[in-house]
């Protein structure tokens, strides 16, 4: 089947469109799970942890004195000046979709356009405790609607592979961040100490829509270790890091073979290596080496993958040799040391 060649710029836009939609959805999930916990003790700490998660403390404190629920929520929901807010993610998604209008289906565009207009109309009354959960659920569902419309209407040519790549790379990244919200609970005394916070792990699973799937795998005890292992390694759960990396690798392989693209061999290798790591490590090894450090490593690795995609397909110069903050390098850096 012949198909007109895909502009490099479009490939980049569709990749980022998918990422921003996925990012908005996951931000809504993270805020929702935090909202569920922030009522009890430690509320202030829990909102602070969201800021730390996205490395946003500095920008936040330039505008605000303290991390209250209300301020952090506004910062992440409707602050157009905050590049990591849901509003910014949806705005960026729509700007990309605007460029891509010749390529995406009308239904994809219309849904996103309406979603964007709704995001811009959110007022303080929508963010009070009684309404917040409904708002966040609405945002999550709008993102899922977009994904569903894309599944049902987006023409399956080269562009759709970049859509898949963006979606899975972002989702993998976001799952690491979701898990990172609760990593402090896994340091120190291990499962025994974390058991008191078991409700939080429940909610974490639920926010990733993973509770029932988890139960099918582990019908007995729900432990933090098992939850972390499930979110990282499960080969069938749609939001596990492993599954996302596998899907991304498959999409890239198919794109390259079907359209006879020469570039991107290094990315295929990188994704395969990452997959091997995720297949071969046990959760106990990871916890022993430090969960947060491992999550950081994964995030850094995905950043490098994105840089390589930019160089291979989006017409950018290869990223400079400076390494991402996490220290991930290419080819693969050794994993954080695991004490025996």
């Amino acid at each position, binding site marked *: 089947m012949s198909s007109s*060649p*895909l*502009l490099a710029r479009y490939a980049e836009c569709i990749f980022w469109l998918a990422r921003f939609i996925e990012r908005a959805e996951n931000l809504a999930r993270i805020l929702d799970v935090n909202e569920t916990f922030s009522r009890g003790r430690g509320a202030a700490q829990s909102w602070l942890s969201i800021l730390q998660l996205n490395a946003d403390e500095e920008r936040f404190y330039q505008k605000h004195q303290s991390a209250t629920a209300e301020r952090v929520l506004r910062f992440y929901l409707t602050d157009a000046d905050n590049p990591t807010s849901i509003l910014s993610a949806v705005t960026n998604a729509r*700007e990309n979709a605007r460029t891509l209008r*010749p390529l995406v289906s009308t239904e994809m565009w219309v849904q996103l*356009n309406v979603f964007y207009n709704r995001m811009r109309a959110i007022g303080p009354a929508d963010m009070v405790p009684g309404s917040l959960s409904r708002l966040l659920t609405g945002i999550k569902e709008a993102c899922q609607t977009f994904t569903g419309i894309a599944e049902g209407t987006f023409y399956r040519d080269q562009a759709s592979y970049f859509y898949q790549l963006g979606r899975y790379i972002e989702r993998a990244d976001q799952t690491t961040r979701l898990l990172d919200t609760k990593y402090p609970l896994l340091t120190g005394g291990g499962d025994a100490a974390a058991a008191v916070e078991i409700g939080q792990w429940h909610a974490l699973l639920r926010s990733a829509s993973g509770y029932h799937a988890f139960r099918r795998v582990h019908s007995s005890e729900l432990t933090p270790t098992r939850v972390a292992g499930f979110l990282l390694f499960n080969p069938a759960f749609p939001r596990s890091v492993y599954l996302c990396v596998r899907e991304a690798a498959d999409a890239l392989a198919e794109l390259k073979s079907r359209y006879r693209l*020469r570039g991107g061999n290094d990315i295929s290798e990188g994704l395969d290596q990452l997959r091997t790591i995720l297949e071969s490590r046990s959760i106990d090894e990871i916890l022993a080496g430090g969960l947060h450090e491992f999550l950081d490593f994964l995030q850094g690795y995905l950043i490098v993958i994105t840089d390589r995609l930019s160089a291979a397909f989006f017409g950018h110069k290869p990223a400079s040799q400076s390494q991402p903050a996490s220290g991930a390098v290419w080819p693969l850096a050794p994993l954080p040391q695991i004490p025996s």
Partner: protein
Amino acid sequence: MALRACTLARPVHRRRDNCVREAQDRQMTGFVLDGYDPQEFYCEMLRCAATAGLRERLARMPIADFQRRTAAAEQALYDYGITFTLYAENSPIDRILPFDAIPRVIAAAEWQQIETGIIQRITALNLLLDDLYHGQKILKDGIVPADLILGNPNYRPRMHGVAVAHKAYVNICGTDIIRGGDGLFRVLEDNARTPSGVSYVIENRHMMLRAFPDLVDGAGLRPVEDYGSRLVAAMREIAPAGCHDPQIVLLSPGIYNAAYFEHVFLAREMGVPLVEGSDLVVEQDRVYMRTIGGLHPVDVIYRRINDDFLDPEAFRPDSLLGVPGLMRAYYSGNVALANAIGTGVADDKAVYAYVPKIIRYYLDEDAILPNVETYICREAESLRYTLDHLAELVVKPVGEAGGYGITIGPQASQAELEACRAKLVADPANYISQPCIDLSVAPTLCDGGVMPRHVDLRPFAITGASTWVLPGGLTRVALRPGSLIVNSSQGGGSKDTWVLEHE
């Protein structure tokens, strides 16, 4: 979207002070055309026998129902993003082109005249351009003053001797047509560079079909859907010689351009990539686009960027929109551009005045669509007439577009008239003047009910090996009472334009 042409008319004056209030009372209980009064103007609806069926349907439709459905249609335009974007304080504001759901109807015989008139006119303009860029016979024969052409900033000497496929320089044209109180159609302006607005013609029809199927059903409308495929066919016809399966692209300035929606629309209708300057690169006088698999050759470019910005090597060096080297590829015959370079000299406001003579010169025919009477102020007699009748005339600078620098005599203050006089005396060659035309009106839904509002018409024509005119065109309507200008940035809207298949 800022449409370029500026159409002038006398304002509609309210006859009775209480007319708005009466209309508001009607809107709760009455029907769409109840009490509609076009006053002294030529009404496109009431003066056309072919609208009888439509009038009957409107007369049975409650106005409250009509308003509700119009509002839903406009919301849909907004949701669909059929918008033009304004930037206020760096934040984008999406505006729809207001949509008036009472259609403007053109009878079959009227359309026949418009269609043949446009084809005649474009044929003559293309012959003019071919002549100007080759032998310049028309200048030698003294039909058009040579200095008017040779000193024109839109005349491109570099086009001399360049072969253009089918001698079709103007491939896409959007001719502005107005109708006066005498019911005659006249050409106001030839938009032969990069005319916009055709997307609204097609989207307005889609909107009508969705929101008012009961008005459209069985009305016998000429379809507007095949514009995209006609455009692609013409682009294939103008491809460089020997190129059998040309790669066509549409070149846009990008998402910040007010007409970006239209560029998207056309690229989609044509099924071709929508590119920006940065997507294209010229190597060894050949144009390529940057794809995920590397460079891919491009053969035909429908460009929505003016000559000046196309190639920083050849024209404005500060242009970031263009493609360095594009003109080298063009002059080498390796890529076709639509429209061709240098068409701006044919739609110049001063050259416009000569178009009836140009038609006679090349085709030995009378113009089927007359011009608006035009006084070319570079000619002493016309200048004298203009200065003597300043308060009755519209004075336009020849080089400007978008309604800039226009003085409307009947509306101008004494000080404005004096300022205009001074400019005319200082630089007469820069101006033309025209009588103020009573533009025709069409019934239009306004806040106070259905009112007469001035309309114009911009049909779109495509020329490859031959010329085809999209039935209908963009009907723009001046929504503000008394408004002189149908321009979208000045509160103008649009209507669906119906060309009827039968009388």
